[in-house]
């Protein structure tokens, strides 16, 4: 089962990954965007972590809803409302349970991804974050590791696509040949998720079965 603390750790790991990769994300956003994706997400996730350190809600749903609201309030751009909606949508679907199963989380994340698609009007193949979010969410019922790999492949697969949503679409055919920054950051989120789960699993193994914050192998 996954508790509020697990989700806080996930978001902290995501913030660290975004911070580490911010320059690369901005770099990817240069040829087919406006060179701000990395700094946008760094600003947002830094604010999320700061907020969660101040007031950590005690249910997974509340953690994600609060984090989503914070992204909306601090990121701006396209990715702010979209990632904010992803987390809020997922959080709302999780309801008020103090702990959720991996299967429940996978269902909720699917709802969050659907909310992103509804808000932005994009579909897989449009060269957006959905190209990593959808395969990642699809693979999550299998395992965290499978989701990480699927999202990663999804991001790579945006390279040959022509963008049909977001700024990159203005470039028409010139958007072909570049990896989508949003899909890349989405893959980072799944990577942080799998890392968090694996770290929790190891902690579990090390402690041989202690109960708190367990995450893996269920």
């Amino acid at each position, binding site marked *: 089962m996954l508790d509020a603390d697990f989700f806080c750790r996930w978001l902290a790991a995501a913030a660290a990954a975004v911070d580490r990769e911010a320059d690369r994300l901005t770099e990817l956003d*240069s040829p087919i965007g*406006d060179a701000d994706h990395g700094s946008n997400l760094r600003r947002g996730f830094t604010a999320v972590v700061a907020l969660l350190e101040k007031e950590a809600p005690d249910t997974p749903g509340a953690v994600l809803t609060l984090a989503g609201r914070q992204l*909306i309030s601090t990121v*701006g*751009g396209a990715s702010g409302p979209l990632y904010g909606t992803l987390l809020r949508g997922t959080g709302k679907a999780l309801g008020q349970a103090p702990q959720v199963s991996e299967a429940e989380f996978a269902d909720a994340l699917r709802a969050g991804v659907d909310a992103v698609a509804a808000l932005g009007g994009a579909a897989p193949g449009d060269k957006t974050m959905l190209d990593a979010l959808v395969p990642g969410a699809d693979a999550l019922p299998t395992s965290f590791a499978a989701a990480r790999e699927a999202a990663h492949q999804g991001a790579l697969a945006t390279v040959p696509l022509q963008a049909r949503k977001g700024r990159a679409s203005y470039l028409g055919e*010139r958007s072909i040949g570049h990896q989508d920054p949003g899909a890349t950051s989405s893959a980072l989120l799944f990577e942080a998720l799998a890392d968090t789960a694996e770290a929790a699993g190891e902690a579990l193994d090390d402690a041989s079965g202690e109960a708190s914050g367990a995450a893996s192998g269920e």
Partner: protein
Amino acid sequence: MLINVAENVVADALRGMAAAHPELAVDVENRVIVRGDAPVAGKVALVSGGGSGHEPLHGGFVGPGMLSAACPGEVFTSPVPDQMVRAAAAVDSGAGVLFVVKNYTGDVLNFDMAAELAEDEGVQVAKVLVNDDVAVTDSLYTAGRRGTGATLFVEKLAGAAAEEGMPLERVEAIARRVNDHSRSFGVALSACSTPAKGSPTFDLPAGELELGIGIHGEPGRERRSMMTSGEIADFAVHTVLEDLKPRNPVLVLVNGMGATPLLELYGFNAEVQRVLRERGVAVARTLVGNYVTSLDMAGASVTLCQIDEELLRLWDAPVRTAALRWGM
């Protein structure tokens, strides 16, 4: 770059703006620029905003006869809904608020969220989307036409309508009419450098130019080898006129992208006027300057707005803002 650290450029600029413009109420922390006498009783309020880096748009257009408030986001990043909600609360006199939104995914999403939240707080909100950029041809397979130079026309003309005391529906209708009758086309002679990246956002060798750019330092639809000012005017005006077939006189905005010297911009205007004359399009008023910019990008855009008697009256109406000022 003339900055301290990239993270603070917007806050620094707002502090500097507050110092230079005591007639504005600048909330640096919450990033809202409000005309000093807001709310104006009985007057519809206009709120706009968008990423920073397009100055004087929008903050330079706050004041009597134009915007009631502006919400600057990070550089090239649309503002967050909290800013628009705060701005709306600050300027609403009860007559309602018109959001002027440039058509970018980020701006649309954030302003939509803000509209919902503001309405929850009892503010009547209308929205107008500015999407004048004819360089985006295929709106089915894109995010749709971008909002560029016409934003200035929408803000000026709807702002004047609000100042005249028109109710929200009419102000909104005027804003929509202005947008419907406006088209733009832009070219870049150099890329721009964002503070976050610190170097040009794309590579444009001297001797080449990008046709059909937006205002976010993105490359255009097509790269060509350098053209003369006259050839660029031909291309830009023809492209606009393919889409806008004005039967009435037009307002002309010859806009610099930020680093284009006025000397060049006025020379470009001479060519734009020549092409309009050749095409038989009558010009009512012309504005030349760096108004809707892309940081330090070199280049220019042409916006035409077909007007009528009412719109001409609203254009000539007094305006008192940092960047646009006449009649008072």
